[in-house]
Protein backbone atom coordinates (compact mmCIF):
# COMPACT_ATOMS: atom_id res chain seq x y z
CA UNK A 1 0.00 0.00 0.00
CA UNK A 2 2.75 2.38 1.04
CA UNK A 3 4.62 1.75 -2.22
CA UNK A 4 1.59 2.71 -4.26
CA UNK A 5 1.25 5.87 -2.21
CA UNK A 6 4.92 6.61 -2.70
CA UNK A 7 4.60 6.22 -6.42
CA UNK A 8 1.60 8.49 -6.45
CA UNK A 9 3.49 11.12 -4.53
CA UNK A 10 6.52 10.99 -6.82
CA UNK A 11 4.31 11.14 -9.87
CA UNK A 12 2.55 14.19 -8.48
CA UNK A 13 5.85 15.77 -7.58
CA UNK A 14 7.15 15.10 -11.05
CA UNK A 15 4.04 16.66 -12.55
CA UNK A 16 4.34 19.73 -10.38
CA UNK A 17 8.06 20.32 -10.92
CA UNK A 18 9.20 22.40 -13.84
CA UNK A 19 10.34 20.91 -17.14
CA UNK A 20 13.99 21.28 -16.20
CA UNK A 21 13.66 19.04 -13.14
CA UNK A 22 11.74 16.24 -14.82
CA UNK A 23 14.71 14.56 -16.58
CA UNK A 24 16.65 14.46 -13.31
CA UNK A 25 13.86 12.51 -11.63
CA UNK A 26 13.77 10.09 -14.50
CA UNK A 27 17.52 9.58 -14.41
CA UNK A 28 17.55 8.78 -10.69
CA UNK A 29 14.79 6.30 -11.37
CA UNK A 30 16.92 4.75 -14.14
CA UNK A 31 19.85 4.31 -11.77
CA UNK A 32 17.71 2.48 -9.22
CA UNK A 33 16.30 0.34 -11.98
CA UNK A 34 19.80 -0.58 -13.16
CA UNK A 35 20.85 -1.59 -9.64
CA UNK A 36 17.73 -3.72 -9.18
CA UNK A 37 18.24 -5.23 -12.64
CA UNK A 38 21.82 -6.20 -11.83
CA UNK A 39 21.07 -7.51 -8.34
CA UNK A 40 18.69 -10.07 -9.79
CA UNK A 41 21.37 -11.28 -12.19
CA UNK A 42 24.57 -12.30 -10.37
CA UNK A 43 25.84 -13.98 -13.57
CA UNK A 44 25.63 -10.70 -15.42
CA UNK A 45 27.52 -8.85 -12.67
CA UNK A 46 30.23 -11.51 -12.81
CA UNK A 47 30.41 -11.13 -16.59
CA UNK A 48 30.85 -7.38 -16.31
CA UNK A 49 33.61 -7.90 -13.73
CA UNK A 50 35.39 -10.37 -16.02
CA UNK A 51 35.28 -7.93 -18.92
CA UNK A 52 36.43 -5.10 -16.66
CA UNK A 53 39.40 -7.24 -15.58
CA UNK A 54 40.25 -8.03 -19.21
CA UNK A 55 40.10 -4.34 -20.16
CA UNK A 56 42.24 -3.47 -17.15
CA UNK A 57 44.78 -6.14 -18.13
CA UNK A 58 44.98 -4.94 -21.71
CA UNK A 59 45.52 -1.26 -20.87
CA UNK A 60 47.34 -1.37 -17.52
CA UNK A 61 48.82 -4.88 -17.11
CA UNK A 62 51.13 -3.50 -14.42
CA UNK A 63 48.16 -3.15 -12.07
CA UNK A 64 47.46 -6.89 -12.12
CA UNK A 65 50.97 -8.30 -12.13
CA UNK A 66 54.46 -6.98 -11.44
CA UNK A 67 56.31 -9.80 -13.18
CA UNK A 68 57.86 -9.61 -16.62
CA UNK A 69 56.07 -11.85 -19.17
CA UNK A 70 59.18 -12.35 -21.33
CA UNK A 71 62.02 -13.14 -18.93
CA UNK A 72 61.90 -16.28 -16.83
CA UNK A 73 63.95 -17.99 -14.17
CA UNK A 74 65.14 -21.26 -15.75
CA UNK A 75 65.49 -22.89 -12.34
CA UNK A 76 61.74 -22.40 -11.79
CA UNK A 77 60.47 -24.03 -14.96
CA UNK A 78 57.31 -26.15 -14.96
CA UNK A 79 56.11 -25.08 -11.51
CA UNK A 80 52.49 -26.06 -10.93
CA UNK A 81 49.98 -23.30 -10.06
CA UNK A 82 50.34 -22.17 -6.48
CA UNK A 83 50.85 -19.20 -4.20
CA UNK A 84 54.09 -18.03 -5.86
CA UNK A 85 52.88 -18.48 -9.41
CA UNK A 86 49.09 -18.35 -9.69
CA UNK A 87 48.99 -19.94 -13.13
CA UNK A 88 52.29 -21.86 -12.77
CA UNK A 89 55.36 -21.36 -14.94
CA UNK A 90 56.28 -22.47 -18.47
CA UNK A 91 59.28 -24.31 -19.90
CA UNK A 92 61.57 -21.27 -19.50
CA UNK A 93 60.37 -20.49 -15.99
CA UNK A 94 58.25 -17.53 -17.12
CA UNK A 95 55.24 -16.72 -14.96
CA UNK A 96 52.16 -17.86 -16.87
CA UNK A 97 49.81 -15.48 -15.07
CA UNK A 98 51.97 -12.53 -16.17
CA UNK A 99 51.95 -13.88 -19.72
CA UNK A 100 48.17 -14.22 -19.76
CA UNK A 101 47.73 -10.70 -18.32
CA UNK A 102 50.16 -9.16 -20.80
CA UNK A 103 48.68 -11.27 -23.60
CA UNK A 104 45.32 -9.60 -23.08
CA UNK A 105 46.62 -6.46 -24.79
CA UNK A 106 47.48 -8.32 -28.01
CA UNK A 107 44.33 -10.43 -28.01
CA UNK A 108 42.07 -7.47 -27.29
CA UNK A 109 43.81 -5.34 -29.90
CA UNK A 110 43.23 -8.03 -32.52
CA UNK A 111 39.63 -8.52 -31.41
CA UNK A 112 38.84 -4.81 -31.40
CA UNK A 113 40.34 -4.38 -34.88
CA UNK A 114 38.29 -7.32 -36.13
CA UNK A 115 35.05 -5.97 -34.66
CA UNK A 116 35.82 -2.46 -35.91
CA UNK A 117 36.45 -3.68 -39.46
CA UNK A 118 33.27 -5.75 -39.48
CA UNK A 119 31.23 -2.97 -37.82
CA UNK A 120 32.48 -0.15 -40.04
CA UNK A 121 32.48 -1.96 -43.38
CA UNK A 122 29.36 -4.02 -42.73
CA UNK A 123 27.48 -1.13 -41.18
CA UNK A 124 28.31 1.15 -44.09
CA UNK A 125 27.33 -1.47 -46.66
CA UNK A 126 24.04 -2.16 -44.90
CA UNK A 127 23.31 1.53 -44.40
CA UNK A 128 23.97 2.32 -48.04
CA UNK A 129 21.92 -0.65 -49.25
CA UNK A 130 19.00 0.07 -46.97
CA UNK A 131 18.97 3.83 -47.42
CA UNK A 132 19.69 4.08 -51.14
CA UNK A 133 17.48 1.15 -52.12
CA UNK A 134 16.82 0.10 -55.72
CA UNK A 135 19.73 -1.23 -57.78
CA UNK A 136 22.37 -0.15 -55.25
CA UNK A 137 20.63 -2.33 -52.68
CA UNK A 138 20.52 -5.24 -55.13
CA UNK A 139 24.18 -5.03 -56.08
CA UNK A 140 25.44 -4.62 -52.51
CA UNK A 141 23.30 -7.41 -51.11
CA UNK A 142 24.38 -9.85 -53.83
CA UNK A 143 27.96 -9.07 -52.83
CA UNK A 144 27.05 -9.77 -49.20
CA UNK A 145 25.49 -13.09 -50.26
CA UNK A 146 28.77 -14.06 -51.86
CA UNK A 147 30.67 -13.19 -48.69
CA UNK A 148 28.22 -15.40 -46.80
CA UNK A 149 28.66 -18.32 -49.19
CA UNK A 150 32.26 -18.90 -48.09
CA UNK A 151 32.44 -20.32 -44.54
CA UNK A 152 33.94 -17.63 -42.28
CA UNK A 153 37.12 -19.45 -41.33
CA UNK A 154 37.95 -20.22 -44.97
CA UNK A 155 37.45 -16.61 -45.97
CA UNK A 156 39.81 -15.62 -43.15
CA UNK A 157 42.33 -18.27 -44.24
CA UNK A 158 42.31 -17.01 -47.84
CA UNK A 159 42.93 -13.47 -46.57
CA UNK A 160 45.72 -14.63 -44.26
CA UNK A 161 47.33 -16.43 -47.21
CA UNK A 162 47.22 -13.23 -49.23
CA UNK A 163 48.13 -10.76 -46.48
CA UNK A 164 50.66 -12.81 -44.51
CA UNK A 165 51.10 -13.46 -40.80
CA UNK A 166 50.79 -11.13 -37.83
CA UNK A 167 48.28 -10.03 -35.23
CA UNK A 168 46.86 -7.12 -37.23
CA UNK A 169 46.58 -9.10 -40.46
CA UNK A 170 44.80 -11.94 -38.68
CA UNK A 171 42.50 -9.37 -37.09
CA UNK A 172 41.63 -7.84 -40.45
CA UNK A 173 41.02 -11.29 -41.91
CA UNK A 174 38.63 -12.14 -39.07
CA UNK A 175 36.93 -8.77 -39.42
CA UNK A 176 36.28 -9.17 -43.15
CA UNK A 177 34.66 -12.54 -42.46
CA UNK A 178 32.19 -10.75 -40.17
CA UNK A 179 31.24 -7.97 -42.60
CA UNK A 180 28.31 -9.82 -44.18
CA UNK A 181 26.39 -10.34 -40.94
CA UNK A 182 26.70 -6.68 -39.97
CA UNK A 183 25.59 -5.56 -43.43
CA UNK A 184 22.48 -7.73 -43.22
CA UNK A 185 21.44 -6.60 -39.76
CA UNK A 186 22.15 -2.94 -40.50
CA UNK A 187 20.18 -3.07 -43.74
CA UNK A 188 17.14 -4.71 -42.20
CA UNK A 189 17.16 -2.16 -39.35
CA UNK A 190 17.45 0.77 -41.75
CA UNK A 191 14.60 -0.63 -43.83
CA UNK A 192 12.46 -1.00 -40.71
CA UNK A 193 13.15 2.53 -39.50
CA UNK A 194 12.80 4.08 -42.94
CA UNK A 195 9.17 3.06 -43.05
CA UNK A 196 8.37 4.53 -39.65
CA UNK A 197 5.89 7.39 -39.47
CA UNK A 198 8.34 9.84 -37.93
CA UNK A 199 10.72 9.39 -40.86
CA UNK A 200 7.88 10.05 -43.27
CA UNK A 201 6.94 13.12 -41.23
CA UNK A 202 10.49 14.42 -41.27
CA UNK A 203 10.63 13.90 -45.02
CA UNK A 204 7.37 15.67 -45.63
CA UNK A 205 8.59 18.62 -43.56
CA UNK A 206 11.36 19.01 -46.08
CA UNK A 207 14.27 17.61 -44.07
CA UNK A 208 17.26 16.90 -46.27
CA UNK A 209 18.31 13.26 -46.70
CA UNK A 210 21.38 13.66 -44.52
CA UNK A 211 19.23 15.17 -41.81
CA UNK A 212 16.84 12.25 -41.95
CA UNK A 213 19.76 9.86 -41.93
CA UNK A 214 21.68 11.47 -39.09
CA UNK A 215 18.83 12.51 -36.82
CA UNK A 216 16.24 9.79 -37.32
CA UNK A 217 17.46 6.68 -39.11
CA UNK A 218 20.91 6.15 -37.58
CA UNK A 219 20.03 6.63 -33.89
CA UNK A 220 17.07 4.29 -34.19
CA UNK A 221 18.79 1.63 -36.27
CA UNK A 222 21.98 1.14 -34.28
CA UNK A 223 20.56 -0.77 -31.28
CA UNK A 224 20.53 -4.28 -32.77
CA UNK A 225 23.83 -3.53 -34.52
CA UNK A 226 25.46 -2.76 -31.19
CA UNK A 227 24.12 -6.01 -29.75
CA UNK A 228 25.58 -7.78 -32.76
CA UNK A 229 28.89 -6.02 -32.16
CA UNK A 230 28.95 -7.37 -28.60
CA UNK A 231 28.21 -10.88 -29.87
CA UNK A 232 30.79 -10.48 -32.62
CA UNK A 233 33.34 -9.55 -29.99
CA UNK A 234 33.08 -13.04 -28.51
CA UNK A 235 33.12 -14.69 -31.93
CA UNK A 236 36.19 -12.68 -32.87
CA UNK A 237 38.05 -13.64 -29.70
CA UNK A 238 37.48 -17.28 -30.67
CA UNK A 239 38.39 -16.79 -34.33
CA UNK A 240 41.54 -14.79 -33.59
CA UNK A 241 42.69 -17.35 -31.04
CA UNK A 242 41.99 -20.20 -33.49
CA UNK A 243 44.07 -18.55 -36.19
CA UNK A 244 46.92 -17.80 -33.81
CA UNK A 245 46.69 -21.37 -32.51
CA UNK A 246 47.19 -22.51 -36.11
CA UNK A 247 50.34 -20.37 -36.10
CA UNK A 248 49.32 -17.37 -38.20
CA UNK A 249 49.20 -14.83 -35.38
CA UNK A 250 51.82 -13.06 -33.31
CA UNK A 251 55.43 -14.22 -33.61
CA UNK A 252 56.56 -16.65 -30.84
CA UNK A 253 57.88 -14.67 -27.85
CA UNK A 254 54.79 -12.45 -27.73
CA UNK A 255 52.23 -13.82 -25.25
CA UNK A 256 49.01 -13.86 -27.32
CA UNK A 257 46.28 -16.09 -25.83
CA UNK A 258 45.94 -18.49 -28.76
CA UNK A 259 49.72 -18.72 -29.09
CA UNK A 260 50.03 -19.49 -25.36
CA UNK A 261 47.75 -22.50 -25.84
CA UNK A 262 49.64 -23.78 -28.84
CA UNK A 263 52.92 -23.38 -26.89
CA UNK A 264 51.44 -25.28 -23.98
CA UNK A 265 50.32 -28.05 -26.30
CA UNK A 266 53.88 -29.38 -26.51
CA UNK A 267 53.97 -29.91 -22.76
CA UNK A 268 50.41 -31.16 -22.36
CA UNK A 269 51.50 -34.45 -20.80
CA UNK A 270 53.48 -32.94 -17.92
CA UNK A 271 52.22 -29.34 -17.54
CA UNK A 272 48.44 -29.20 -17.98
CA UNK A 273 48.20 -25.64 -16.67
CA UNK A 274 50.08 -24.21 -19.65
CA UNK A 275 47.15 -25.18 -21.88
CA UNK A 276 44.23 -25.24 -19.48
CA UNK A 277 44.51 -21.80 -17.87
CA UNK A 278 44.94 -19.58 -20.96
CA UNK A 279 42.06 -21.52 -22.53
CA UNK A 280 39.87 -20.93 -19.49
CA UNK A 281 40.68 -17.22 -19.76
CA UNK A 282 39.47 -17.18 -23.39
CA UNK A 283 36.34 -19.17 -22.51
CA UNK A 284 35.54 -16.83 -19.59
CA UNK A 285 35.94 -13.75 -21.78
CA UNK A 286 33.70 -15.13 -24.53
CA UNK A 287 31.10 -16.38 -22.06
CA UNK A 288 31.02 -12.98 -20.38
CA UNK A 289 30.55 -11.03 -23.62
CA UNK A 290 27.82 -13.41 -24.74
CA UNK A 291 26.03 -12.95 -21.42
CA UNK A 292 26.26 -9.17 -21.71
CA UNK A 293 25.01 -9.30 -25.30
CA UNK A 294 22.02 -11.35 -24.17
CA UNK A 295 21.26 -8.81 -21.45
CA UNK A 296 21.55 -5.92 -23.91
CA UNK A 297 19.42 -7.70 -26.45
CA UNK A 298 16.42 -8.95 -24.58
CA UNK A 299 16.28 -8.46 -20.86
CA UNK A 300 17.22 -4.80 -20.53
CA UNK A 301 15.39 -3.55 -23.62
CA UNK A 302 12.34 -5.67 -22.84
CA UNK A 303 11.77 -3.91 -19.51
CA UNK A 304 11.96 -0.41 -20.83
Amino acid at each position, binding site marked *: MSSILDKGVTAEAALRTSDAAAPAVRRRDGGARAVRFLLRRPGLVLSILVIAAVVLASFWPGLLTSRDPLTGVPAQSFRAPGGAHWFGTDELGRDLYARVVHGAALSMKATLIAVAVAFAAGGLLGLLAGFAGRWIDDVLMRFVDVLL*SIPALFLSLALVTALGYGTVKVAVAVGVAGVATFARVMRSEVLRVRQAVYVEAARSCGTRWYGVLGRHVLPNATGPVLVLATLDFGTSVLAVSSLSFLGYGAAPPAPEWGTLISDGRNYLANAWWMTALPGLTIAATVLATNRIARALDGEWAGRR
Partner: protein
Amino acid sequence: MRRYVVLRLLQAAMVLWAAYTLSFLILDVLPGDPVSAMAVSSADQGVVDPARIEHLKSEYGYDKPLPLRYAGYLGAALHGDFGDSVSTGRPVTSVIADALPQTVQLTGAGLLAGVAAGGGLAMAATCTSARWLRQLLLSLPPLGVSVPTFWAGLMLVEVFSFRARLLPAFGNDGLRGLVLPAVTLAIPTGAIVAQVLSKSLLTVLDEPYVQTARAKGAGRARIHLRHALRNASLPALTVIGLLVGQLIANAVVVETVFSRNGLGRVTAAAVAVQDLPLVQGVVVFASLVFVLVNLIVDLVYPLLDPRIVVAGGRHWSSA
Protein backbone atom coordinates in the same frame (compact mmCIF):
# COMPACT_ATOMS: atom_id res chain seq x y z
CA MET B 1 7.64 -26.03 -58.02
CA ARG B 2 9.77 -26.90 -61.05
CA ARG B 3 10.33 -23.21 -61.67
CA TYR B 4 11.47 -22.82 -58.07
CA VAL B 5 13.91 -25.74 -58.33
CA VAL B 6 15.44 -24.44 -61.56
CA LEU B 7 15.76 -20.92 -60.17
CA ARG B 8 17.29 -22.20 -56.97
CA LEU B 9 19.82 -24.31 -58.92
CA LEU B 10 20.77 -21.31 -61.05
CA GLN B 11 21.23 -19.20 -57.95
CA ALA B 12 23.48 -21.82 -56.39
CA ALA B 13 25.61 -21.90 -59.54
CA MET B 14 25.86 -18.11 -59.55
CA VAL B 15 26.90 -18.01 -55.90
CA LEU B 16 29.58 -20.61 -56.56
CA TRP B 17 30.90 -18.66 -59.51
CA ALA B 18 30.98 -15.53 -57.39
CA ALA B 19 32.74 -17.38 -54.56
CA TYR B 20 35.34 -18.57 -57.04
CA THR B 21 35.85 -15.04 -58.35
CA LEU B 22 36.07 -13.57 -54.86
CA SER B 23 38.67 -16.09 -53.73
CA PHE B 24 40.59 -15.54 -56.97
CA LEU B 25 40.62 -11.79 -56.38
CA ILE B 26 41.62 -12.10 -52.73
CA LEU B 27 44.53 -14.39 -53.51
CA ASP B 28 45.58 -12.64 -56.69
CA VAL B 29 45.14 -8.93 -56.27
CA LEU B 30 46.01 -8.32 -52.65
CA PRO B 31 49.56 -7.20 -51.81
CA GLY B 32 52.26 -9.80 -51.79
CA ASP B 33 53.98 -11.38 -54.74
CA PRO B 34 52.56 -14.87 -55.18
CA VAL B 35 55.19 -16.08 -57.60
CA SER B 36 58.22 -15.27 -55.50
CA ALA B 37 56.39 -16.66 -52.45
CA MET B 38 55.87 -19.89 -54.39
CA ALA B 39 59.47 -19.89 -55.56
CA VAL B 40 60.72 -19.42 -52.00
CA SER B 41 58.43 -22.11 -50.63
CA SER B 42 59.53 -24.61 -53.25
CA ALA B 43 63.21 -23.65 -53.31
CA ASP B 44 65.90 -25.62 -51.53
CA GLN B 45 67.34 -23.74 -48.58
CA GLY B 46 66.24 -20.29 -49.66
CA VAL B 47 68.26 -19.92 -52.85
CA VAL B 48 65.83 -18.67 -55.47
CA ASP B 49 66.75 -19.19 -59.07
CA PRO B 50 65.61 -16.33 -61.39
CA ALA B 51 64.96 -18.82 -64.18
CA ARG B 52 62.67 -20.72 -61.82
CA ILE B 53 60.68 -17.51 -61.20
CA GLU B 54 60.30 -16.95 -64.94
CA HIS B 55 59.19 -20.55 -65.36
CA LEU B 56 56.64 -20.25 -62.53
CA LYS B 57 55.37 -16.96 -63.97
CA SER B 58 54.56 -18.51 -67.31
CA GLU B 59 53.28 -21.73 -65.75
CA TYR B 60 50.79 -19.90 -63.53
CA GLY B 61 49.96 -17.26 -66.12
CA TYR B 62 51.43 -14.29 -64.26
CA ASP B 63 52.98 -13.01 -67.47
CA LYS B 64 49.46 -12.30 -68.75
CA PRO B 65 47.20 -9.42 -67.68
CA LEU B 66 44.67 -10.08 -64.91
CA PRO B 67 41.47 -10.51 -66.99
CA LEU B 68 43.14 -13.03 -69.31
CA ARG B 69 44.58 -14.92 -66.37
CA TYR B 70 41.16 -14.98 -64.69
CA ALA B 71 39.46 -16.21 -67.85
CA GLY B 72 42.02 -18.94 -68.27
CA TYR B 73 41.69 -20.09 -64.66
CA LEU B 74 37.90 -19.98 -64.71
CA GLY B 75 37.76 -21.96 -67.96
CA ALA B 76 40.02 -24.63 -66.47
CA ALA B 77 38.02 -24.67 -63.23
CA LEU B 78 34.81 -25.29 -65.17
CA HIS B 79 36.50 -28.40 -66.56
CA GLY B 80 37.36 -29.47 -63.02
CA ASP B 81 40.99 -28.39 -63.23
CA PHE B 82 42.08 -26.18 -60.35
CA GLY B 83 45.76 -26.26 -61.26
CA ASP B 84 48.63 -27.98 -59.51
CA SER B 85 49.49 -27.58 -55.88
CA VAL B 86 52.79 -25.71 -55.58
CA SER B 87 54.09 -27.54 -52.53
CA THR B 88 53.38 -31.10 -53.72
CA GLY B 89 53.21 -30.66 -57.50
CA ARG B 90 50.05 -32.78 -57.66
CA PRO B 91 46.72 -31.58 -59.09
CA VAL B 92 44.67 -29.70 -56.51
CA THR B 93 41.60 -31.83 -57.14
CA SER B 94 43.42 -35.07 -56.40
CA VAL B 95 45.01 -33.63 -53.24
CA ILE B 96 41.52 -32.71 -52.03
CA ALA B 97 40.04 -36.04 -53.13
CA ASP B 98 42.74 -37.98 -51.25
CA ALA B 99 42.25 -36.04 -48.04
CA LEU B 100 38.46 -35.95 -48.20
CA PRO B 101 37.42 -39.42 -46.89
CA GLN B 102 39.14 -38.87 -43.52
CA THR B 103 37.44 -35.52 -43.10
CA VAL B 104 34.03 -36.81 -44.17
CA GLN B 105 34.36 -39.58 -41.60
CA LEU B 106 35.34 -37.11 -38.89
CA THR B 107 32.73 -34.46 -39.63
CA GLY B 108 30.03 -37.10 -40.13
CA ALA B 109 30.78 -38.62 -36.74
CA GLY B 110 30.94 -35.16 -35.20
CA LEU B 111 27.59 -34.15 -36.73
CA LEU B 112 25.88 -37.36 -35.57
CA ALA B 113 27.26 -37.10 -32.05
CA GLY B 114 26.44 -33.39 -31.89
CA VAL B 115 22.86 -33.78 -33.11
CA ALA B 116 22.28 -36.73 -30.76
CA ALA B 117 23.76 -34.96 -27.73
CA GLY B 118 22.20 -31.58 -28.49
CA GLY B 119 18.82 -33.10 -29.28
CA GLY B 120 18.93 -35.27 -26.17
CA LEU B 121 19.83 -32.28 -24.03
CA ALA B 122 17.00 -30.18 -25.45
CA MET B 123 14.51 -33.01 -24.93
CA ALA B 124 15.66 -33.65 -21.38
CA ALA B 125 15.60 -29.95 -20.50
CA THR B 126 12.06 -29.42 -21.78
CA CYS B 127 10.78 -32.76 -20.48
CA THR B 128 11.93 -32.55 -16.90
CA SER B 129 9.71 -31.03 -14.25
CA ALA B 130 12.61 -30.31 -11.92
CA ARG B 131 13.37 -26.60 -12.25
CA TRP B 132 17.00 -26.83 -11.16
CA LEU B 133 17.72 -29.62 -13.64
CA ARG B 134 16.19 -27.65 -16.50
CA GLN B 135 18.21 -24.55 -15.63
CA LEU B 136 21.38 -26.61 -15.33
CA LEU B 137 20.81 -28.27 -18.70
CA LEU B 138 19.92 -25.01 -20.42
CA SER B 139 23.06 -23.35 -19.08
CA LEU B 140 25.29 -25.89 -20.86
CA PRO B 141 24.81 -24.79 -24.51
CA PRO B 142 26.01 -21.19 -23.97
CA LEU B 143 29.09 -22.76 -22.38
CA GLY B 144 29.58 -25.02 -25.39
CA VAL B 145 29.67 -22.16 -27.88
CA SER B 146 32.05 -20.08 -25.74
CA VAL B 147 34.82 -22.63 -25.42
CA PRO B 148 37.58 -22.53 -28.07
CA THR B 149 37.30 -25.79 -30.03
CA PHE B 150 41.02 -26.48 -30.15
CA TRP B 151 41.26 -25.99 -26.41
CA ALA B 152 38.39 -28.39 -25.75
CA GLY B 153 40.21 -30.98 -27.88
CA LEU B 154 43.46 -30.50 -25.98
CA MET B 155 41.66 -30.85 -22.64
CA LEU B 156 40.03 -34.09 -23.79
CA VAL B 157 43.46 -35.39 -24.81
CA GLU B 158 44.87 -34.40 -21.42
CA VAL B 159 42.12 -36.18 -19.50
CA PHE B 160 41.38 -39.26 -21.61
CA SER B 161 44.76 -39.96 -23.19
CA PHE B 162 47.41 -38.73 -20.80
CA ARG B 163 45.64 -39.23 -17.48
CA ALA B 164 43.23 -42.12 -17.99
CA ARG B 165 45.15 -43.66 -20.93
CA LEU B 166 41.87 -44.80 -22.46
CA LEU B 167 42.08 -43.42 -25.98
CA PRO B 168 44.89 -42.54 -28.37
CA ALA B 169 45.77 -38.83 -28.47
CA PHE B 170 46.98 -38.56 -32.04
CA GLY B 171 46.67 -40.12 -35.44
CA ASN B 172 44.16 -41.71 -37.75
CA ASP B 173 44.05 -45.28 -36.49
CA GLY B 174 40.59 -46.75 -36.52
CA LEU B 175 37.51 -46.08 -34.46
CA ARG B 176 39.33 -45.54 -31.18
CA GLY B 177 41.27 -42.68 -32.71
CA LEU B 178 38.06 -41.14 -34.01
CA VAL B 179 36.34 -40.82 -30.63
CA LEU B 180 38.11 -37.79 -29.17
CA PRO B 181 38.18 -35.67 -32.36
CA ALA B 182 34.52 -36.43 -33.03
CA VAL B 183 33.55 -35.50 -29.48
CA THR B 184 35.52 -32.26 -29.83
CA LEU B 185 33.65 -31.41 -33.04
CA ALA B 186 30.36 -32.37 -31.42
CA ILE B 187 30.68 -29.78 -28.62
CA PRO B 188 29.94 -26.60 -30.64
CA THR B 189 27.58 -28.49 -32.96
CA GLY B 190 25.60 -30.00 -30.11
CA ALA B 191 25.47 -26.64 -28.33
CA ILE B 192 23.85 -24.96 -31.35
CA VAL B 193 21.42 -27.84 -31.91
CA ALA B 194 20.44 -27.77 -28.25
CA GLN B 195 19.86 -24.01 -28.28
CA VAL B 196 17.71 -24.02 -31.42
CA LEU B 197 15.78 -27.17 -30.59
CA SER B 198 15.01 -26.28 -26.97
CA LYS B 199 13.76 -22.87 -28.03
CA SER B 200 11.51 -24.33 -30.70
CA LEU B 201 10.34 -27.12 -28.37
CA LEU B 202 9.30 -24.57 -25.78
CA THR B 203 7.32 -22.68 -28.43
CA VAL B 204 5.64 -25.82 -29.71
CA LEU B 205 4.74 -27.01 -26.20
CA ASP B 206 2.54 -23.93 -25.83
CA GLU B 207 0.51 -24.79 -28.94
CA PRO B 208 -3.15 -25.72 -28.56
CA TYR B 209 -2.69 -29.21 -30.01
CA VAL B 210 -0.24 -30.04 -27.25
CA GLN B 211 -2.81 -28.92 -24.69
CA THR B 212 -5.39 -31.07 -26.44
CA ALA B 213 -3.10 -34.07 -26.28
CA ARG B 214 -2.42 -33.37 -22.61
CA ALA B 215 -6.14 -33.04 -21.91
CA LYS B 216 -6.73 -36.37 -23.56
CA GLY B 217 -4.35 -37.94 -21.06
CA ALA B 218 -1.16 -38.35 -23.08
CA GLY B 219 1.94 -38.69 -20.93
CA ARG B 220 4.93 -36.36 -20.95
CA ALA B 221 7.07 -38.70 -23.05
CA ARG B 222 4.34 -39.35 -25.57
CA ILE B 223 3.60 -35.65 -26.00
CA HIS B 224 7.28 -34.95 -26.51
CA LEU B 225 8.04 -37.73 -28.93
CA ARG B 226 4.84 -37.89 -30.96
CA HIS B 227 3.61 -34.32 -30.99
CA ALA B 228 6.23 -31.77 -30.01
CA LEU B 229 9.48 -33.15 -31.43
CA ARG B 230 8.15 -33.68 -34.94
CA ASN B 231 6.95 -30.13 -35.21
CA ALA B 232 9.85 -28.58 -33.35
CA SER B 233 12.58 -30.24 -35.39
CA LEU B 234 11.47 -28.56 -38.63
CA PRO B 235 12.73 -25.07 -37.69
CA ALA B 236 15.87 -26.74 -36.34
CA LEU B 237 16.50 -28.16 -39.81
CA THR B 238 17.30 -24.71 -41.16
CA VAL B 239 20.45 -24.44 -39.07
CA ILE B 240 21.94 -27.57 -40.67
CA GLY B 241 23.55 -25.47 -43.39
CA LEU B 242 25.16 -23.31 -40.73
CA LEU B 243 26.27 -26.40 -38.81
CA VAL B 244 27.95 -27.98 -41.82
CA GLY B 245 29.84 -24.78 -42.60
CA GLN B 246 30.99 -24.63 -39.01
CA LEU B 247 31.92 -28.33 -38.98
CA ILE B 248 34.29 -28.08 -41.94
CA ALA B 249 35.82 -24.95 -40.44
CA ASN B 250 36.30 -26.65 -37.08
CA ALA B 251 37.75 -29.70 -38.82
CA VAL B 252 40.75 -27.54 -39.79
CA VAL B 253 41.48 -26.86 -36.14
CA VAL B 254 40.57 -30.31 -34.82
CA GLU B 255 42.68 -32.18 -37.38
CA THR B 256 45.62 -29.99 -36.41
CA VAL B 257 45.06 -30.67 -32.70
CA PHE B 258 44.85 -34.44 -33.17
CA SER B 259 47.43 -34.62 -35.98
CA ARG B 260 44.93 -36.41 -38.19
CA ASN B 261 45.34 -36.47 -41.94
CA GLY B 262 42.51 -34.86 -43.84
CA LEU B 263 41.29 -31.79 -45.63
CA GLY B 264 41.74 -29.55 -42.59
CA ARG B 265 45.41 -30.45 -42.21
CA VAL B 266 45.88 -29.93 -45.95
CA THR B 267 44.29 -26.48 -45.63
CA ALA B 268 46.39 -25.43 -42.65
CA ALA B 269 49.56 -26.59 -44.39
CA ALA B 270 48.62 -24.87 -47.66
CA VAL B 271 48.08 -21.55 -45.88
CA ALA B 272 51.38 -21.96 -44.04
CA VAL B 273 53.41 -22.35 -47.28
CA GLN B 274 51.22 -19.95 -49.33
CA ASP B 275 50.23 -22.67 -51.77
CA LEU B 276 47.78 -20.41 -53.62
CA PRO B 277 46.14 -22.92 -56.01
CA LEU B 278 45.55 -25.36 -53.16
CA VAL B 279 44.15 -22.67 -50.84
CA GLN B 280 41.79 -21.50 -53.55
CA GLY B 281 40.74 -25.07 -54.31
CA VAL B 282 39.93 -25.71 -50.66
CA VAL B 283 38.06 -22.42 -50.25
CA VAL B 284 35.94 -23.10 -53.34
CA PHE B 285 35.35 -26.66 -52.18
CA ALA B 286 34.21 -25.47 -48.75
CA SER B 287 31.74 -23.06 -50.28
CA LEU B 288 30.58 -25.77 -52.70
CA VAL B 289 29.68 -27.99 -49.75
CA PHE B 290 28.08 -25.08 -47.93
CA VAL B 291 26.01 -23.97 -50.93
CA LEU B 292 24.96 -27.56 -51.74
CA VAL B 293 23.79 -28.27 -48.20
CA ASN B 294 21.77 -25.06 -48.14
CA LEU B 295 20.33 -25.90 -51.55
CA ILE B 296 19.25 -29.35 -50.38
CA VAL B 297 17.70 -27.93 -47.20
CA ASP B 298 15.79 -25.35 -49.25
CA LEU B 299 14.54 -27.98 -51.71
CA VAL B 300 13.60 -30.58 -49.12
CA TYR B 301 11.97 -28.18 -46.68
CA PRO B 302 8.71 -27.65 -48.65
CA LEU B 303 8.39 -31.43 -48.99
CA LEU B 304 8.64 -31.92 -45.25
CA ASP B 305 6.39 -29.05 -44.27
CA PRO B 306 3.38 -28.79 -46.55
CA ARG B 307 2.39 -25.49 -44.93
CA ILE B 308 5.23 -23.78 -46.74
CA VAL B 309 4.10 -22.41 -50.07
CA VAL B 310 6.88 -21.90 -52.54
CA ALA B 311 6.60 -18.58 -54.28
CA GLY B 312 8.74 -18.32 -57.37
CA GLY B 313 10.21 -15.10 -56.07
CA ARG B 314 13.89 -14.38 -56.05
CA HIS B 315 15.48 -14.79 -52.70
CA TRP B 316 19.05 -15.85 -52.60
CA SER B 317 20.69 -18.47 -50.42
CA SER B 318 19.24 -18.01 -46.98
CA ALA B 319 22.26 -19.22 -45.10
